[in-house]
């Protein structure tokens, strides 16, 4: 290694880390900024606030109390006795071992992204783009490897995952895959509402897709945005796992919601995920680039 390499390496390795106090200060201010921007940028909310201000004080207080009571009643609680609460959907997702989520947007009939997550195998595979331009990214935590396959050439690039990347990948495995709108139930903004939908309230997204068999439909709305958001979750009637989640938005309260995107979930077996990875990246030895690949062993110990 020549002196230039040494110097470049020295500069590359130089790293400054934030203190816990700094992290807290910056995050507190960033969270406050996020909330402030939501208030400033939401014309619908501003309008709602203006309307509230012109009410006489007593009416305003009564209205606020009524809204609070209704919100408490509706939030996280379904109307139908057979319905489930939002928390049960989160719980079901956190227990799911293997999940495949396909994301569709309005313009595409094919998914724009598919993500396979196996919490038991500790692997995540992404497929982005479609058709001949598709790209697969495999995060293999046991082997600390990231492999990328580019189509149509079939070229495979391999890189080591840094310790930080491993932590991030592990964290992403614990999440809820966008099948519910927030990473955890506590992140839901104030004013969020959750309710079960009746059959007649479910217009079809596309012809023949008015409902998802074996599911019960729920709707969640939340206003803490520039836009007002709504998601519709079709949860399996037995397992409570979401099979489809549709996202909609609108700018003003009086507008109609517009479709934004949709996540379709399946829950494959560990074996199915192994087979798929093998199909994309080849046998285990080829995936690791080294002999003795142990990330996805064929036979799990009993």
């Amino acid at each position, binding site marked *: 290694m020549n002196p230039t390499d040494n110097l470049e390496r020295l500069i590359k390795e130089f790293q400054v880390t934030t203190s816990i106090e700094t992290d807290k200060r910056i995050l507190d*201010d960033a969270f406050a900024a996020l909330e402030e921007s939501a208030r400033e940028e939401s014309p619908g909310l501003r309008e709602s606030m203006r309307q509230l201000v012109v009410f006489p004080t007593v009416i305003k207080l009564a209205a606020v109390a009524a809204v609070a009571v209704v919100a408490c009643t509706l939030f996280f609680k379904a109307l139908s006795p057979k319905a489930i609460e939002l928390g049960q959907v989160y719980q079901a997702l956190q227990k799911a071992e293997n999940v495949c989520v396909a994301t569709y947007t309005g313009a595409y009939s094919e998914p724009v992204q598919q993500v396979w997550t196996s919490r038991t195998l500790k692997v995540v595979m992404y497929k982005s783009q479609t058709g001949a331009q598709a790209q697969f990214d495999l995060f293999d935590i046991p082997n600390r490897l990231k492999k990328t396959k580019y189509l149509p050439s079939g070229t495979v690039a391999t890189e080591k995952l840094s310790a930080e990347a491993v932590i991030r990948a592990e964290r992403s495995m614990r999440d809820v895959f966008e099948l519910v709108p927030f990473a955890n139930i506590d992140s839901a903004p104030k004013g969020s509402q959750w309710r079960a939908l009746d059959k007649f309230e479910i217009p079809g997204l596309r012809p023949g897709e008015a409902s998802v068999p074996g599911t019960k439909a729920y709707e969640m709305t939340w206003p803490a945005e520039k836009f007002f958001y709504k998601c519709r979750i079709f949860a399996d009637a037995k397992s409570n796992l979401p099979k489809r989640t549709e996202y909609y938005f609108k700018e003003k309260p009086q507008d109609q919601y517009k479709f934004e995107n949709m996540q379709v979930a399946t829950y494959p077996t560990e074996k199915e995920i192994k087979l798929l990875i093998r199909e994309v990246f080849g046998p285990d030895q080829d995936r690791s680039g080294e002999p003795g690949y142990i990330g996805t062993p064929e036979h799990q110990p009993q």
Partner: protein
Amino acid sequence: MLEDQRLLWRLKRGDKEALRGIYEKYKDNMLTVATSLLHDTGSAEDVLHDVFVSFAMGVRKLKLRSSLRKYLITSIINRVRDRFRTRKHHVVELDAVGPISSDSESPEQSAILTEESQLLTGALARLPLEQRETIVLHLKAGMKFNQIAKMQGISISTVQGRYRYGLSKIRTILNGEMRK
């Protein structure tokens, strides 16, 4: 990249945990770039603070044309440039021997930076801003020369020249420090 898209997707819907995720992922890289350019961890933390709070404030309108990492690093660079403009940070030329430029002499700074890092950032601080920026963008932000050229609106050969000349100066400075 895909992870960033997911985090941004959630953040735009008001998910605070996504904001925390982005912060945790990029904070050290952003702080290191700022410290390398400013040679002062206190000022660098202020820059990190300002960039991240601005990011949180404007993220709902954000439409990324490049990667999130590049966007955040560019924001750091721009904020550092603003600092140099408004505070009239003077660049210490190699020939002008003197103390290393710094905004503060806080004890915390010494606690965070090792002696080797102090020497390194001290040497970087003596470079003209253009050379320092080129070296930091290439080695700390992982940007290629053509990306830096595009960002700075100059030719690739100029970027490469600044990079080589900057490294050569750092080596000279460090060799001088070692002999002391």
